[in-house]
């Protein structure tokens, strides 16, 4: 998504790709809004199987949330390295961000497995269906983010990136921060607020 026609400067002063990413993220807000609403409506509807407060492990999820937040910090470092055109640090911080993201996803895989063992399947109850759908969608977003970060590292190494490097890093950074912010909302609404 790096098409730019260079005929004249953009009317808003923001590059097309960045503005495009903003628009996309605006749209994503509604996607997560819908999923979160569904969860909020259904979280207390348990006709069988565990209820939210019976299986949530708040200390663990707090730690994994913190790790995801840290990854936003490293993403910021990557973007600032990109502005300084320090290729080594771009690669380094992108990798660290991806690793932190992977740690988070690893934690989510663990959490899903543990919940499943404790009796919460995807089809067990409305709580189960909506919980796995919401957090699963978020997990997929993080995973896509990791793939983008790793690919970016690979592509940068081969110096194949079309367009401006800093812009691409910044665009992926926007996405990554968005995914983090969404997690903060999910963490608060899903885990912290009792049913």
């Amino acid at each position, binding site marked *: 998504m790096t098409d730019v026609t260079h005929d004249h400067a953009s009317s808003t002063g923001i590059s097309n790709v960045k503005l495009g990413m903003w628009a996309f993220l605006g749209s994503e807000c509604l996607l997560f809004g819908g999923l979160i609403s569904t969860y909020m409506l259904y979280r207390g509807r348990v006709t069988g199987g565990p209820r939210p407060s019976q299986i949530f492990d708040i200390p663990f999820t*707090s730690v*994994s949330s913190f790790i995801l937040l*840290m990854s936003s910090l490293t993403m910021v470092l990557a973007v600032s390295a990109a502005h300084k055109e320090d290729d080594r640090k771009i690669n380094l911080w992108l990798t660290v961000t991806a*690793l932190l993201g992977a740690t988070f*996803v690893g*934690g989510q895989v*663990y959490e899903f497995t543990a919940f499943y063992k404790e009796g919460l399947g995807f089809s067990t109850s409305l709580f189960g269906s909506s919980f796995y759908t919401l957090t699963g969608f978020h997990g997929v977003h993080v995973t896509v983010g990791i*793939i983008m970060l*790793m690919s970016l590292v690979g592509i940068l190494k081969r110096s194949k990136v079309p367009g401006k490097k800093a812009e691409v890093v910044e665009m992926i950074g926007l996405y990554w921060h968005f995914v983090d912010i969404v997690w903060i909302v999910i963490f608060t609404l899903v885990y912290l607020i*009792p049913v």
Partner: protein
Amino acid sequence: MFSTGFKYFFGVTVLSVVALVMSVALFKNLALIGVAITFLIAAGALLTGLAIITSDGTTRDANVQTSDMTTQSLWPLVTGIGTVFLALGLVTSSIVFFGGVVVLLAALSEWMIQAWSERASSDASHNAEARKRLLNPIEFPVLAALGLGVVIFAFSRIMLTVDKSTGAVLFIVVGTLVLVAGTLFAIKPNMKRSVGAAICALGAIGIIAGGVASAVSGEREELALAAEEGHFTHKECGPEESEYFDKLKEETLSLRSAVSATIIYQDGELIAKIQGLNKPQKSITVPRSNATNIIFRNATEGEFRLVVDLGKPKTEDKDSDHDVDCTQLIETGGEQSLTLKIPKSSSADNHYKLFIAGAEDKQIIVVVP
């Protein structure tokens, strides 16, 4: 005349078709497979066609003399392994079979591309570049996903083995290590690449080894027990606090409107409030075979649960206990919903009722016409 891209996609098409023909053996519905094949051929053909149109590579490809040089190749070996898996899978389970199919497909395509690239020109570096050009877009993401997948999976197995608090600590440790390592690299730009690679490799190996060990040693005790006993999947509708079902209570309710009846335990009396009737009732009418939502509200001092007696179960055993369903123990002022579905009308030997656990005399008759 056949361009390299053409060969590549033609191969992909043929391979997909082969895979699907194989799967015909596994799936019952042949008509669907037929459609699926059409679809796949269409996909392959589209790409093949594209390749023809672009006459990709003809400028270099057409008149290149085949060089005799061959390089060492991993792919025949992997192909062999894939075939073995395939055969094993036919005997054992379909997962192994599919694993074999995937390995085989991957190996064959890599082999094919490599073979082609070695004959593409007499220039070895050009050949290597051509191979990369074709395969990197697939290899990069697949390898990244595989690598990440293995690490993530191994990590989650470790977490499943250690107990909850250790898990949280472990999580902090891993996160911190990643951060610290990153920072170290950042402030020590002179560190040798090999040192960095070694640290990363060690970390990965550690996690994978830990994962394997954990997977072998099995998950932590309480999880294993929960999976075995189904802690939350059965309800205990007796008067006493049940160990898991009542462990944590949900007191607020997302279901508030349009319920069939609200059952209130008020000052030691059980009453039903029904929309349209102003007086509290002692019986409710519930349509047969219909998922009917009611709300139980406790307005008496103490913790109580509402139990619904669903009559004798459908077994021939006339002495067996009645089927019951229930809410959790609800504190004063709390409420919870309960969904009833009663398939048989009430009759002389089929009575349904709602009552308070431990106080069978506080009851509401449920009429199923």
